[in-house]
């Protein structure tokens, strides 16, 4: 044991971030190492690997639950990563809500993991895992709540095939966070007073509405599937009417199949929506940041 510790100091490994250190971006944690990214949606699992140079390599998608896909793909997945570490995006059984006056601070994120009651107070529910995204200018926050049982089951399933989750996150929520930051930066450190942000990720949809500089509404739905464009439009349309005409409409999306994105953009183009989507956006967000 002592020898291992000495070796880790002399190889500088003791100063590197742990593979599951959530305070360090994934790309930095796995610098010059292969890692695996897995997205778990309702009814499908997709994955992508990152090589030692930090570039995306082969990926794939399989219909079915993670518990069914993992035993079949376990060997393939283990070959795509070093030490079995992977980043997992869970894209169903979550709720995103708008909250106000939540605690902010440097330790808020770690406190939300270790003692969520201290951050959320009476809003805390024992069976949930939380993540938070604060409005850059106001006291509003987006609160993500994921079923704890789903997180544990996902972790257990991966452990059965000798994979270790270095991070478990929600891909849709991560895309929302990323889009909010991108809009904030694109507008020179501010946000348009009115806008609608639509995020779609592997069959999950989230729509955020900002009116007069305040987040007013958030709607989310998971398990839509790539062909549920009509259902998505039914969620989006009422929210579009909440903002004045000419307000920016942003769309950001990613998925194994581009059909959903193409079809929904046909409708959103009519209201002048801007597509913020980039190639491999989900994998970039959970594989670099």
């Amino acid at each position, binding site marked *: 044991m002592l020898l291992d510790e000495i070796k880790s*100091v*002399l*190889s*500088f490994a*003791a*100063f590197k*971030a*742990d593979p*599951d*250190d*959530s*305070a360090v*971006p*994934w790309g930095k944690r796995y610098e010059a190492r292969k890692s695996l990214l897995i997205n778990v949606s309702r009814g499908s699992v997709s994955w992508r690997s990152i090589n030692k140079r930090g570039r995306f390599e082969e990926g794939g998608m399989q219909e079915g639950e993670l518990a069914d896909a993992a035993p079949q793909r376990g060997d393939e997945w283990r070959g795509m990563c070093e030490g079995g570490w992977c980043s*997992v995006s869970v894209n169903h059984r979550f709720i995103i809500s708008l909250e106000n006056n939540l605690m902010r601070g440097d330790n808020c*994120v770690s406190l939300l*993991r*270790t003692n969520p009651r201290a951050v959320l107070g009476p809003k805390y529910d024992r069976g949930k*895992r*939380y*993540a*938070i*995204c604060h409005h*850059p200018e106001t006291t509003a926050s987006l609160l*993500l709540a*994921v079923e704890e049982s789903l*997180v*544990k089951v996902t*972790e257990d399933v991966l452990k059965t095939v000798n994979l270790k*989750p*270095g*991070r*478990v*996150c*929600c891909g849709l*929520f*991560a895309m929302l*966070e*990323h889009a909010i*930051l991108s809009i*904030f*930066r694109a507008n020179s450190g501010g946000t348009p007073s009115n806008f609608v942000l639509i995020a779609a990720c592997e069959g999950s949809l989230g729509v955020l509405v900002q009116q007069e500089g305040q987040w007013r509404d958030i709607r989310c739905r998971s398990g839509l599937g790539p062909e549920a464009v009509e259902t998505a439009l039914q969620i989006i349309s009422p929210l579009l009417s909440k903002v004045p005409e000419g307000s920016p409409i942003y769309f950001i999306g990613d998925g194994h199949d581009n059909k959903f994105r193409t079809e929904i953009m046909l409708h959103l183009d009519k209201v002048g929506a801007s597509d913020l989507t980039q190639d491999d956006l989900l994998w970039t*967000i*959970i594989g670099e*940041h």
Partner: protein
Amino acid sequence: MSEYLCHDFKTPRTDTSRRLPSSFRAIPIIFYVALVGSAYVMTMDYFNYKKALTQKTEAEERRKLSESQRDASKAEKAELESEAFKAEKVAEWMEGARNIQPIAVKIARAVQAETRITQVALERSEQVPANLALTIHLNGSKVSSELSAIENALGQLLYRSYSPQQTKNGDVVEYHSTLVRQSE
């Protein structure tokens, strides 16, 4: 807003320890610097040791060469000294070996007309060339006075008679003496 960092709600591990502070990176850095320094010093020491061995071998060879040259010089010197000694001896002998003609002339002039010299012999000593063995056979009435005159005459040539002996054999007086040259 600062650089975006993706959220994470995985179950925290309990078997992790705190990461070492970044300032502790100095420890392995110092270790490796010391390692490299030691390797450099050891390498230099090794090469210097090899160089010293070569220099020592060369010095040994130079010493042997010098010793052989010294021995040769000593032998040559001894030979020269021996030659010089011999030459000195020869020079001494040559210096001691003076002409005997003046002695013969002095003897002839010292003897009166009525006295006959039947034999004169001068023999030079090999060891002491300055000494001469003189043998004279005289036949006459005043031999004793003649011998005294001869000794006087030789005394003028700085020769002194040493251990003179006279033997009378009939009418002939045989005179033997060793002439020793006196220093001036």
